[in-house]
């Protein structure tokens, strides 16, 4: 065992709905993971920087405004630029099903729309990040 799984939960863009993001933080902590929450209104650069600094295995983005496609694209670019070496990028929030495929093509490993049971998210992460 190489220690706890480290997850960064980020709120990119201007959306201020953070109840879900904070609930997911608590659910992941309850599942024994180390969680860092960025707070609101983070630029993709800031999220990527924090992901590297915190050596996050997983980056989870919470987006409810509908701007998930442009925001995910930018965060993925910035993570690449910053040289992040984690396992996977996840996104949660108000994400229409028809966008899932496009998100996956961008490099999002898992999409968890509002209402997803926490257990599904933790199980997914534990499966992806074998420590």
């Amino acid at each position, binding site marked *: 065992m190489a220690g706890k799984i480290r997850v960064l939960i980020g709120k990119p863009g201007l*959306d201020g709905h953070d109840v879900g993001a904070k609930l997911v933080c608590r659910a992941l902590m309850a599942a024994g993971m180390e969680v860092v929450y960025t707070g609101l209104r983070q630029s993709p650069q800031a999220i990527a920087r924090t992901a590297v600094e915190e050596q996050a295995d997983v980056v989870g983005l919470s987006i409810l405004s509908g701007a998930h496609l442009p*925001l995910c694209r930018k965060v993925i670019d910035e993570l690449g630029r910053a040289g992040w070496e984690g396992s996977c990028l996840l996104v949660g929030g108000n994400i*229409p099903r028809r966008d899932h495929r496009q998100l996956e093509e961008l490099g999002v490993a898992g999409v968890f729309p509002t209402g997803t049971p926490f257990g599904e998210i933790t199980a997914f992460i534990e499966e992806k990040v074998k420590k």
Partner: protein
Amino acid sequence: MSSPDEKLPPVVWESGIEIEPVYRPEDVERSGGLEAVGDSGEYPYTRGVHPLMYRKRPWTMRQYSGFGTAAETHERFLWLLEHGQTGLNVAFDLPTQCGLDSDDPMAEGEVGRVGMAVDTLADMEEAFAGIDLDRVTVSLTINGSAVAIMAMYFALARKRGFPLEKLRGNCQNDILKEFVGRGTWIFPAEPSIRLVVDTMEFCARRVPRYSPVSVCGYHIRESGATPAQEMACGLAIACAYLERALERGLDADAVAAGITFNFDIHGNLWEQVAKFRAGRRLWARLLRERYGVSNSRALKLRMIAGGGGGGLTIQQPENNIVRGAYYALASALGGTQTMALCSYDEAYTIPSEHAAKLSLRTMQILMHEVGLCDTVDPLAGSWFVESTTNLMEKKILDILDDIERQGGIVKSIAEGRLQAEVNRQAWERERRIQAGEIPKVGVNLFVEQEAERDIEFHPYREQEARRQIERLNHVRAERDAAAVERALDGLHRAAAAGENVMPAAMDAVEAYASVGEICGVLKDVFGTYREPIRF
């Protein structure tokens, strides 16, 4: 017949009040009696703020709306008014709410998405073209950048010849709750509060019938607070603004009259009714006893209620139509002045025209068909309702005392303590719903295999966003650049000198300075907020 000593499972409201299976007169006595019930329109207003309530003045119906450009929002406004809506409740897009212009890099992908994009006065002029500002009351849902948007609204009214002294309506402008939920803060806590007080002072002097602050228990409840906490935090926040205004030497009667409220409605129906009845009573008492307010307009807790997105579900979403009707019922039984009912598709999209109309019809059916306007406070005198109103009042007072003992609501929010507490509760509640311990129809009770329902957004139109930016550039090119600079300098000076910024903000918007420029000047002076992250 069940025997009297039969053990029933306890019923405990979210606020922590245990409910008896049967209420009798002695329960009312034990909880504090009927003395404070009084009459409607009379202190302490338990039964409602107007003597004849809906018999004379039914609630205003004001659905939250606005999207895309000012022109599209204008169309939606006209459509809503045509369908019998009696007020307007304006939604702004996130860049506007965060004090950014449409061409700011952070605004990319967000222009016009969740509300109307406003850069300059020109957008407000277009959105409200031809709408009678002295007949339709307008509610501006704006907080961080409220100084700029409120100044635009007043400038617009002035230009169109509506005297400010007669202008009614309100602005949300409750920055303290933005730090707890919703999150469209810009400046640090202290200067943010100062800006709110600037608007209170300006309105008390110049726009006396306008409510510059609508304190929102709503978003604190949506973030995880119980109904009792929601009311307590709302009252505490209102008192915090009032106290700052009094420190400035303002007249308590005049500024308190400018404070209205916005409350949530989801959850147990009786608990909401008790919350409103107790809250009205407490607000009147706090104002009179603590601040010596005697102006009856100020003592009356006036509110908007009917939203409760947190109670809606994405599963079996048609159930939300029914939930919405019960929420409307609760707000009418609770004596609200204005209703903005949540729409059934709100759990997964920005309400469609169809859903918004259904909400409007729900309120209209309640108003015109089933007798909710027949008589004042129809639940008064019920042993159950009066007992729980008394118990709720005590509960709210206890929370208020707790907040004060711990240094006050401003400190609690600035340090992130309130946020952490309500979030812990939200987690606990969500965990219990997912575990099936709190029943939720369609989620953990009567669950059905459903066809995958997709989340929908209004399609984002890059083209509209580009058009908005072109429009902004056009305004920038057309306006008198020297006048803008002068006005922004004046705003900078007023902000730095601790003077009221509203007159300078009015000058700036009249010179067609943008939201981003105005907030940019204020950021230069005040800095930006840093969110305390606490779990």
